[in-house]
């Protein structure tokens, strides 16, 4: 299959995250890039914008901005030319999906079909063939396996933000090694410790962020929350929120609750859990 990877306003983090895919040589045997921002390709960016080259999947990486040009051609012209002929379009990362980190107050920057949560119609005719792979950066396994699913013609169910449910139906909280501290509402996390849950004080968004970070580990070895780094919600349209290392609370209750859990259910459960003092969770894991 022929892929076109087009960089817009981006940091190239998705490109480098993709290069972390462990079987990349095999991948490059199964797919070929007509253009890629780093890998050698048979066509240059000049060729891409001036000619009409065969392309099966268009990958867009980065925030779209009005008036932005690539090789002196407006990106809208390029996206429409290749978007219409491609079988599928993938937005690679949160910037191309929702606008991401580089959004400003003006309405001149956006993702392909969304500006944060708001859907827009600038590229309406491309919507029915788009898959959004959000994440800042993308997880290489998620991008690559989505591409293989397209190649093998498996049906990918998408959520309301066009993300494949296969990877975004569960929350990042699933598989976190700190889950017991969450389950039993132990709210004394301190940075620099193996123990504790960052949901209560330190802004962890994992319980209400859709993603697979603790299921498909990063770099095959770890995840942010496992080391004690709060989830910043980077797969969501709202990324980045403000005050990222703090949990916003109302009367001591976290403002954002685990996905789909009503406040009453959360409070009842928390009340019961907090009624018990469980010694194992009060001390360091490695202590005698």
């Amino acid at each position, binding site marked *: 299959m022929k892929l076109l990877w087009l960089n817009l306003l981006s940091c190239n*983090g998705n490109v480098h995250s993709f290069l972390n895919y462990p079987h990349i040589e095999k991948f*490059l045997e199964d797919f070929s890039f007509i253009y890629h921002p780093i890998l050698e390709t048979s066509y240059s960016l000049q060729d891409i914008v001036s000619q009409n080259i065969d392309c099966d999947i268009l990958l867009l990486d980065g925030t779209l901005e009005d008036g932005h040009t690539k090789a002196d051609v407006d990106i809208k012209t390029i996206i429409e030319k290749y978007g219409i002929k491609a079988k599928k379009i993938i937005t690679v990362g949160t910037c191309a999906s929702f606008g991401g980190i580089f959004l400003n107050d003006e309405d001149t920057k956006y993702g392909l079909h969304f500006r944060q949560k708001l859907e827009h119609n600038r590229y309406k005719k491309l919507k029915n063939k788009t898959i959004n792979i959000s994440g800042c950066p993308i997880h290489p396994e998620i991008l690559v396996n989505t591409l293989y699913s397209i190649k093998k013609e498996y049906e990918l169910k998408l959520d309301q933000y066009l993300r494949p449910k296969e990877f975004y139906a569960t929350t990042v909280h699933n598989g976190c090694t700190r889950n017991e501290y969450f389950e039993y509402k132990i709210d004394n996390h301190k*940075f620099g410790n193996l123990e504790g849950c960052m949901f209560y004080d330190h802004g962890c968004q994992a319980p209400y962020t859709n993603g697979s970070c603790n299921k498909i580990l990063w770099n095959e070895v770890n995840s942010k929350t496992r080391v004690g780094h709060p989830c910043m919600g980077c797969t969501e349209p709202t990324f980045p929120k403000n005050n990222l*290392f703090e949990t916003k609370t109302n009367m001591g209750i976290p403002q954002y609750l685990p996905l789909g859990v009503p406040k009453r259910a959360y409070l009842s459960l928390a009340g019961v859990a907090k009624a018990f003092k469980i010694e194992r969770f009060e001390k360091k894991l490695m202590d005698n």
Partner: protein
Amino acid sequence: MIELIEKIEGEAKLNFSFKNKKIDFVDIEFASSRHIENILKGKNPLDALVINPRICGICGHAHLIATVQALENCYENIEISQKAKIVRELTLNFEIIQNHFKWIYLTLFPLLGFKQNIKGATYPSQLMSKAIATVGGQYPHNSYAIVGGIVSEISSTDLIKMENYLDEVIKFYQDTVINANVDDFLVCENIEKILSATGDLPKILNTLKNQKIAKEGKSFDRFISFGDNSYFKSGRGVKTKINHNINVKYVNEHPNQNSYAKNVKFKNYYYEVGALSRAMINKTPLIKDSHRRYQDSIFSRILARICEIPQLLIHSKKIISQIDLQEPSYIKPTIDISNIKGTGVGIVEAARGSLIHKVSINENTIKDYQIITPTQWNLSNGNKDDLGISQKAMVGLEDTQLAQIVFKSFDVCSVCTTH
């Protein structure tokens, strides 16, 4: 003649003018900007730890460390454990190492007429990414260094894993890049010995010689490096005369008429930053020998970068052994950052050279933020009477293809430059 330079973590335009068939001037233009400094203004200071790694997908970790140092520098007193300092230095080294491998096999190889070597780029860089993820959770784009230390506790297993990743990369470097033992290589002081050996490094250097371009790409022979740590020394110099007494207050940015990228000078001069500068300031014997024969040409520039890999691999192993696991990873600052009013500077050596962050905070808000990236130093777009480093290196060449090789020998990072 305008040439679009692609695959430099973005694009840039070089507008060449010729006189008597030789390049007389080059105008360097970057056509976009993401205005990160404006995005940061008004944010919670700690949010910069999440925003700033996203300035750059290839050296974002350097941006994280520069950010945390700038924020900590806003304090009059703040205690950071030695353990946290060492781990931060390690992850920064790991990022530099992976950057260098990608540059050799994805950028340099095709420039010299070889096919890109995907495995050569990705195998060692994936190992270094794993080493960062071991303590930082993931790579790219983590924010594991926070004001007061690092978020992760660090166990003895983490140290073992990091050491094993380093050993694996050392083995790869020995087998592929130098076809020799790194310990022997690191004490080598004679470039002729390297040229007569086998492996990808001798192959690259001999190609430069065979194509008769080894002495091309000389600039002003002015070097600067700010980010001193347990390996790199700070200093500036002209040729081999090094002065270690430098102050960041003399670094200034100048707007640029034709480009979104600002020019950077120390006092009134442009300086080269990066592996060659670090090696000249550190007085690395092999690079000094290369400089004696080839000065600050592409030969020395390329050699310095490839030689820095084993230096950092071995040094990283050494500092892992200095970590005291009993020390805390994080010491909660006695004053919360929301009560701090001040300005701070964070400087680190990133793969491509000195990276400077300056922040001003008050009432839990970023009032001002300034970022000076390594590529801004090397690619400053001066005028005919006051050429920037890479402009000087290209002026006088006869062909634009060679000029591209010289230009890319600085390993241009377009995204950093257009922050």
